[in-house]
């Protein structure tokens, strides 16, 4: 693969992550399934670049760094979506400060650590 080809592939992987961000704005089960497909595609593309030996230099580094920044946002969207999903399914309670929270159960203790 040429250096330009690697950069192009990394850009495609990043585009997949951007689509994931859009999907997570309405995180239904269907959207989550599509999210998994996009993430698997991006993972395969980055794996291909890694196996090929990174030759893309600074442009490749910049594209992958941006992809990782987008992934941080994906994590945030995913966490918020899950917290909402779990909390909305539970009984909502008010704290002494008047903030509405969900009654936590073992189900909601799940975190993004994977």
């Amino acid at each position, binding site marked *: 693969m040429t250096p330009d080809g690697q950069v192009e592939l990394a850009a495609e992987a990043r585009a997949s*992550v951007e689509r994931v*961000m859009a999907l*997570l*704005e*309405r*995180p*239904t*089960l269907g959207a*989550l*399934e599509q*999210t*998994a497909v996009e*993430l*698997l595609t*991006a*993972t395969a593309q*980055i*794996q291909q*670049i*890694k196996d090929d*030996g*990174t030759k*893309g*230099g600074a442009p*490749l*580094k910049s594209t*992958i*760094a941006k*992809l*990782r920044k987008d*992934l941080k*946002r*994906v*994590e*945030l*969207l*995913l966490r*918020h*979506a*899950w917290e*909402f*999903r*779990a*909390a*909305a*399914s*539970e009984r*909502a309670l*008010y*704290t002494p*400060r*008047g*903030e*509405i929270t*969900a009654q936590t159960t073992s*189900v909601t203790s*799940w975190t*993004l*650590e*994977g």
Partner: protein
Amino acid sequence: MPGISDALRSSANHLRSLETSLAVIQSNVGNTSTPGYARQDLVGAQGSSLGGELAQQSSRNDYAEQTVHQQNSLLGKFDQISTVLKVVEPSFGPTADAEIPKAIGDLFASFSSLTANPNDTRSRQIVIDEATQLGRTFNNAARDLQNSLAESRHQVTASVDSINRLAGQVRDFNARQSTNAAVGANASVDASLFDTLEHVSEFADIQTLRQSDGTISLLLGGQTALVVGKNVYPIQADLTSGPAARILDTNGSDITSHVTSGRLGGALEVVNQLLPNYESGLDQLAQGVADSVNTALGAGVDINGNPGVPLFKYDPVHIAASLGVAAIGSADIAAAAAAAPGGNGNALALAGLETTPTLNGMTFSGFYGNLAAGVGRDTANAVDKKSVQTQLLAQARAQRSDASGVSLDEEAIRLVEYQRAYQATAKLVSVLDQLSQVTLDMIH
């Protein structure tokens, strides 16, 4: 045995149910684009007879509303901060071509030129011209900061006014609800109320409590009551009792620390922290340059052998804004050392100041670079956070919209299914993150 009157009553019930159904459908369709509207559902009315009447019920989900308010508040905050910083940032360009470092460089270049021709009138005049230009550059940057500060202080007042006005609308709803319990059940009144609450959340972090009588209590920062029943407790902006802007509750107590989000929270952060820090840095730099040059000049002698006089003058309260050149002539520049009148000894010392670590162990250009980098970092952070919040708010609104149509019982049953899907996605994110990190590390 059922008679004809039972049959008629049953038919009448069915007709009433049909009428209610049509009214609900009409309301839902007609209000598709109404801000704050929550879909109305048909439910069996309590106490109705078997197979009996249907009643209209809002599908509004309090948790979903509160989530939207939280995200809207944070978006308001970062939008406010990024809007101001995007105006301030150009005054603090990061490169040596930016106005302040260029003017500082030009002044010290004029001292260098003076070392070659210490008694040349034109070289001396250039020093005064460059010093004048440096003063103007500091004045302009300070003025831009002052303008942004004045605008942000105005935003504090405007946000407080908006919060009080909107709180008044919530109070009006409560007053109507208190006298007629059916008011809250009206879909359009409900839509208007929640549109108002969402609007308040743009200005501050709020909490809403639905009381048993159907009224809404509105709290600011979880601690300060804005509306309770038919009473509204307006807040005030105090911009005159000190340099910092303060927010006072209706009793005059300082509640500034309770306001951490929303446009008001953003404006307070800009007025009380960010802009004063930049002003302080600018003043420190202006004073550092002026005092260093004046001190060095005081150690030398002018063209006539008289002791050197200061080149710069300033008001110690507003240093950068007032920095200017003293009323001196070109002959008054002390280019010579006291021990060697007519020479260039002091001009050499003045030129050497450019590379001397004078401010917090940094050169003038290093100090400016640090200040500019801070402004740039704050701006980039605010813009980035605004972008993230825009997406989180869109997500919260979409989930609110979805939650209105979801049976919470069904949701609870499907939660395990959702949990698996979320966990799988999170694992994939983690794998991709680690893989991209390894790939990045391989690139030299």
